[in-house]
C-alpha cells in the first residue's frame, strides 16, 4: 500500500513548447514505416476554439497487443523501431499528429479482451492536471462492443472515443468541454 503522499500536479503553463517537444516526438513508430498510420486531430476548448498551447501524449500496445515492459505478466516484447509512445504539441491551429502502428487487442480483467486502443494524455495551459482519454478504432465494431472500458461508457458519449477514418490513418478530435465533450477518465 502506498505510504508516501504524492507530489501534486501543476500546469504545463504557456511555455511548454520550449521544454517538452522532441524532434522525433510524433513518431511512435519510425518515420516511413509502411504499416504506420497517422492519428491527427484538433484540441478544442469549451468555446470551440482550437487550443494552440497543448500537448498530446500517447501510449499503446504493439500490433500483437504486447508491451515492451516488465510489468506485463506475459513478458516484455520489444519491437525494433517501435517506441509505443508519441508526443506532439498542438500547433497554432490546435492540431496534433502521431505516427504509429495500430495496436492489437489487449487482455482485460477476468478473461475479457480489450479492443485495440491507445491511451492519451492531454496537457495544456489552463489545465492544472492532465486529462486522460482513449482512442478506439472505427473498423473494430464487434471488439469495441465487447470492450470492458468502452462498453461502460453510456452510448451517446461512446462515439467521442472512436476515431474517424482519414486518408492516411485516423482523425481523433479532442473536445475539453461542451456539447460533444470527449469522455475523460480518472486514472
Amino acid at each position, binding site marked *: 500500500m502506498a505510504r508516501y503522499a*504524492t507530489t501534486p500536479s501543476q500546469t504545463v503553463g504557456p511555455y511548454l513548447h520550449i521544454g517538452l517537444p*522532441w524532434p522525433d516526438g510524433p513518431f511512435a513508430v519510425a518515420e516511413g514505416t509502411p504499416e504506420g498510420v497517422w492519428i491527427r486531430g484538433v484540441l478544442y476548448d469549451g468555446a470551440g476554439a482550437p487550443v494552440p498551447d497543448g500537448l498530446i501524449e500517447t501510449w499503446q500496445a504493439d500490433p500483437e497487443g504486447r508491451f515492451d515492459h516488465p510489468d506485463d505478466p506475459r513478458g516484455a516484447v520489444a519491437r525494433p523501431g517501435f517506441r509505443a509512445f508519441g508526443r506532439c504539441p498542438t500547433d497554432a491551429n490546435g492540431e496534433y499528429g502521431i505516427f504509429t502502428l495500430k495496436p492489437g487487442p489487449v487482455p482485460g480483467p477476468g478473461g475479457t479482451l480489450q479492443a485495440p486502443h491507445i491511451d492519451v494524455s492531454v496537457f495544456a495551459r489552463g489545465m492544472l492536471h492532465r486529462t*486522460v482519454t482513449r482512442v478506439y478504432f472505427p473498423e473494430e465494431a464487434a471488439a469495441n462492443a465487447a470492450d470492458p472500458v468502452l462498453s461502460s461508457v453510456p452510448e451517446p458519449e461512446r462515439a467521442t472515443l472512436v476515431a474517424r477514418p482519414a486518408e492516411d490513418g485516423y482523425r481523433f478530435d479532442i473536445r475539453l468541454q461542451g456539447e460533444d465533450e470527449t469522455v475523460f477518465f480518472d486514472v
Partner: protein
Amino acid sequence: MSTDPTTRPAPPAYARDAEVHPPLDYPGYRSTALRHPKRGLRLLPHLLTEVTGPLLGEDRISENDSDLTRQHDGEPQGQRIIVHGQVRDGDGRPVPHTLVEIWQANAGGRYRHTGDNWPCPLDPNFSGVGRTLTDDQGRYRFTTIRPGAYPWRNHDNAWRPAHIHFSLFGRAFTQRLVTQMYFPGDPLFFQDPMWNSIPDEKARERLVARFDYANTAPEWALAYEWDIVLRGREATVFEDEVDED
C-alpha cells in the same frame, strides 16, 4: 489464495491520489474556465495499458542536458544553483533510470519562447531546458540558474513565484506527472492561483525545495534539494482473486 504454481500476480494497480492534485475547474486560474471537462471523469481500471509505460533511456539525453549553464559559449547571467533530489514512488521505492525533463525562465523571469514578451531581456547564454535520467537510486541532479519571478495577466498585478517546470514518467502511464518546483520562502505564493489551487496546504509544501547548504559547491553554486513522489502501488492482487468477480 490459490497455491497453483501457474498463478501469477496480476499487474499491480496504482494507488488513486486525485485528492492530492488541483481541480481541473479552478476559477482563480481563469484559463481553466473553458478547459475543464464538465461531465466528470469516468473511473478507468488499471489494466495493462495503464500499468505499463515508456521506459525511455539514454537516447533521450545529450551532452550538457543536465547542466543548463554550459549549453552556450558563454555563462548565463544569474545565481548558479544545483537542483537535486530523489524520485520515489508512494511505497518509498526509488524510481531508477527514469527521464526527468525541466524547463524554466532565465534569471530575470523571461522564457526563451516566442509567446513570452514581457520587457525583460533574453539571455543569449541560457535556453532554460534540461533533461536527465535518474540513477539506480532514483537520484537526479541539474545545474542551472535560479529563475526569476514573472508577471502574467491572470488577475490584477499577478506574478508567478519563481519556479522550475518538471516532467516525470515513472514506469507506468498512471505515474506520469508534470509539476513545478518552488523555492522556500517565496513572498508571491499568497496570490498565486497555481499554488492555491492545491487543496491541501501540506501538499503545497511538497512542491517547495529545501535549501541545501551541505551540497552547495563552494565558490561555485548554491544547492536546493527537492524529492519527488510518484504514485505507489495498491496491495498485490492475484489473478484468481480478480477472476472471482
